[in-house]
């Protein structure tokens, strides 16, 4: 469990990092909590590591109608900061891995790694966040829904750096990130990001996103649509449960089988919706 030989570049700015990545075969290193295990297993053997972990310009949390989170913001910083309208971000960050991992790992690192069982992909998909990506060619924005291409695959090109995540706030929404784990600290067996806006006893808006159930975060739009304008009766909830798993074929692994995961998806959605319904 020792990384293969690798070069190392530590830029003083994002600009420098982009220059280097443009002309060298490098892998961006932020906190390393996803990357270093892969280096140790020698699944990845990049020529250079480009260490952006300490670049101040990438570490920030800015509040606003649309909040923005710098890519190298540590999980622990996110977990200790409540952003109005984005309480769910704090909740999610506080559930990543364990304290030590949260102290070192970054939000951008986790997103760039795109583990199919990670927490943030589902979160930012539910929030309809925008990934701001920089390269020598310029800056481009990619919606979370388009960012995650597959297991461990994103819209990031090798010479790209994820700069920040722009997140619309959801004031007046009930928000929750819930995950079922076999053991504390483990990746999600199934995770659910849920935002719900109720007015006068009716669902005005709902956003549902699962992790751990496929190669990418799963946002069941049919279930969302079916819930809109309902009173969230038991019948509405069970209809949404069925729609949430429609067409989903979760993986089977040591955490549980595909059919078990589907069952957990349904129950997680039901319990979280009921919890929110009860909170009114």
């Amino acid at each position, binding site marked *: 469990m020792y990384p293969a030989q690798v070069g190392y570049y530590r830029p003083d700015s994002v600009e420098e990092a982009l220059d280097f990545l443009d002309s060298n075969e490098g892998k961006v290193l932020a906190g390393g909590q996803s990357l270093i295990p892969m280096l140790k297993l020698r699944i990845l053997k990049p020529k250079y590591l480009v260490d952006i972990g300490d670049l101040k310009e990438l570490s920030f949390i800015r509040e606003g109608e649309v909040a923005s989170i710098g890519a190298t913001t540590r999980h622990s910083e996110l977990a200790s900061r409540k952003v109005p309208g984005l309480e769910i971000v704090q909740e999610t960050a506080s559930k990543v891995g364990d304290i030590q991992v949260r102290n070192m790992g970054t939000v951008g690192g986790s997103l760039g790694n795109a583990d199919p069982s990670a927490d943030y992909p589902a979160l930012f998909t539910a929030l309809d966040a925008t990934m701001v990506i920089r390269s020598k060619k310029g800056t481009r924005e990619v919606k979370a829904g388009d960012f995650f291409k597959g297991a461990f695959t994103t819209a990031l090109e090798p010479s790209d750096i994820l700069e920040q995540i722009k997140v619309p706030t959801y004031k007046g929404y009930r928000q929750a990130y819930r995950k079922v784990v076999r053991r*504390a600290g483990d990746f999600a067996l199934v995770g659910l990001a849920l935002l719900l806006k109720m007015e006068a006893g009716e669902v005005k808006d709902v956003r549902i996103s699962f992790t751990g159930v496929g190669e990418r975060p799963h946002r069941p739009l049919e279930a969302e649509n079916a819930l809109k304008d309902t009173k969230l009766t038991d019948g509405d909830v069970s209809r949404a449960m069925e729609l949430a798993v429609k067409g989903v074929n979760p993986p089977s692994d040591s955490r549980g089988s595909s059919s078990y995961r589907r069952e957990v998806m349904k129950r997680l959605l039901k319990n979280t919706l009921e919890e929110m319904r009860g909170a009114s």
Partner: protein
Amino acid sequence: MSYAGKSVKRLYDDKFVTGRSTYVDDIKVNSLYATFVRSNVAHGVIKRMHKEDALKMRGVVAVFTGEELNQLIKGGIGPWTTYIDPRPWKIPLWRFAQGETKYNGEPVAMVVAQDKYTARDAAETVNVDIEPLEAVIDMEEAKKDKVLVHKELGTNLGYVGDFNAGDAEKALSNADRRVEVEIANNRLIPSPMEPRGIVSQYDGANLTIWYSTQIPHFARAEFSRIFNIPESRIRVIMPDVGGGFGSKAHILPEELAVIAASIRLGKTVRWTATRTEEMIATNSRHNVFRGEIGFKNDGTLVAIKGTLDVELGAYLTYTEGLQPTIIPPMIPGPYRVRDLAIRSRAIYTNTIPITMYRGASRPEATFIIERIMSTVADELKMDDVEVRMRNLVREDQMPYTNPFGLKYDTGDYPTLLKEGVKVLEYNKLKEWAESERKKGKKVGVGLAYYLEICGFGPYEYSETRVNEDGSVIVAIGGTPHGQGTETAIAQLVADELQIPIERIKVTWGDSEAIPAGTGTYGSRTLAIAGSAAMASSRQALEKMKRVAARSMKADVEEIEYRNGEFVHKKEGKKMSWDAVAREAYSGKEPGVSASVTLEGDVTFPYGVHVAVVEVDDYGIARVKEYRAYDDIGRVINPALAEGQVHGGGTQAVGQALYELAIINENGQLAVTYADYFVPTAVEAPRFKSYFAEKYHPSAYLTKSKGVGEASLIVGPAAIVRAIEDATGKRFNKTPVTPEDILK
């Protein structure tokens, strides 16, 4: 002044809490690092090895094949003949893989380099051509003998033995009720936190081996046999050892290769397993009992008939031979059933070899008999306590010889159950759980009983030496590695010698500093090594008395010793302990020391444990509370004993709910440490541990029995029972997964 019975603080904790402990990987000695190229098939012919690229790399010293290593590794790893009779066994030669590989993950080549990073780099360039052969991964499939793991054995059945007592067939036909049962424990990974490691130094004549082991003296004997080097020229030193749980009484081909390389190269070579290698090195359990039980309508169990299948993996390890021969005679447990017919089979598969793990055989036997008891209770709609009460061996039957000839020494099993139910508030918990369930919560309470066999002989060594300044060194053959037994033994010795415990140092684990020894395993150390230490200390005290008598010109009978003073009874003259020690080194026959090699035999602690389980809507179960009431004989240090209950109990939680070593169809271990779920503080229950005040002593001088394995022996049965109570479903295996619960 008396130390025994008190929770005296552990004597040697400072080094651990300040980072000055020395485990094998912490030893600073100029050495080369070994790493291994491993087979990626479960069964195959090793065709060709390309090592030229590796040898060209900077810092690479050697690459060895099995052929080369086995020129030095003359004998194979074999069963622990102290406890295992090899005669009925079919045993393949187990050395470093040569010609064929028999399991996925088996080392097939060794790289030696200047540092571990380079060694790994080099290992990646070593190409080993392996032509796959048909493999048999599944134990059920292996039984059919269609694919053989070892052609030369002609079968995959390494052992078949019949354990018959009374007339099971007749008892079954006379029973009021007959029920079929299938009871299984799946494969585990013991997972001591310190991965195994070894450093081997060869100086041309002598071998010095630092080794993360529980059995330095046996290891020396095995190395001697395997390398054909006299024991006198091999020194095995056990540094601090970070847990073993039975898995470090197990010798690996990797370790033999390290020794072979150090001899061949004339250099010091070391290997510390990565966690992945540790997981491949040691798997444990996997046994299935299938059979039929017969019982009367009043709950009396009258017969057990069935077949026990125990998986061996690809080779017979040093310790796994215990299981197929100890599980069957322990199946009757504390109960009176006398008609049993058990066929025990041990089966080779093309998988990671299996070794013993905490409890070794008793957890399997206890799970089987406790599941049987619970089955009887369910079938007859009887209470768990009542059905056990009906079957327990009574006090007037003690000492009791069980149907397979094991002699249960002391105890009062029904009284302990009665007391335990009260102390642990079992009935109150049951009522509480029922009322919670009515409110919609899935909580349950489970109880299980166990009888353990421990305190194994054949012997243990101790030497007590009084130094010139009056301080005392006790050298024991036991090898504590976390249990804290050294502190308990110091307590016993301090009481014997009536001197402050601070003046005593207990030492162990060096095959040259300690002339003989067996080790720490099987909950034996306090009973047997503690008794040996008491005996050697008594003899040393007698010698001190003789010195005092000589000095005070008295007969030894005229000397009385108390509280650190030797008193001439008639004349009232006194000499302090220290003065006598000094005197002992100034006259004739200088020095005071006494050594004993104490023989010992098994003893039988027992107890009742209760688990409280909560199951959530996803089928995820958590053990909220774990309570234990045990008669472990005399308790020397209650806090240390409780620590064993807590630790074993948490491993029981792991076995019952979380831990499962999955081997995929390619024979590959399909879990990493990230998803082999060793419980964390979140999954661990709250413990309440009690010991019977009116204990039943063992025959050992310490009067103690043993507690190291109790909770892992009985815990899985108690926890599974609690899940049944919570869910209303039936489970006869470990682990019970969330999926099983939701099904």
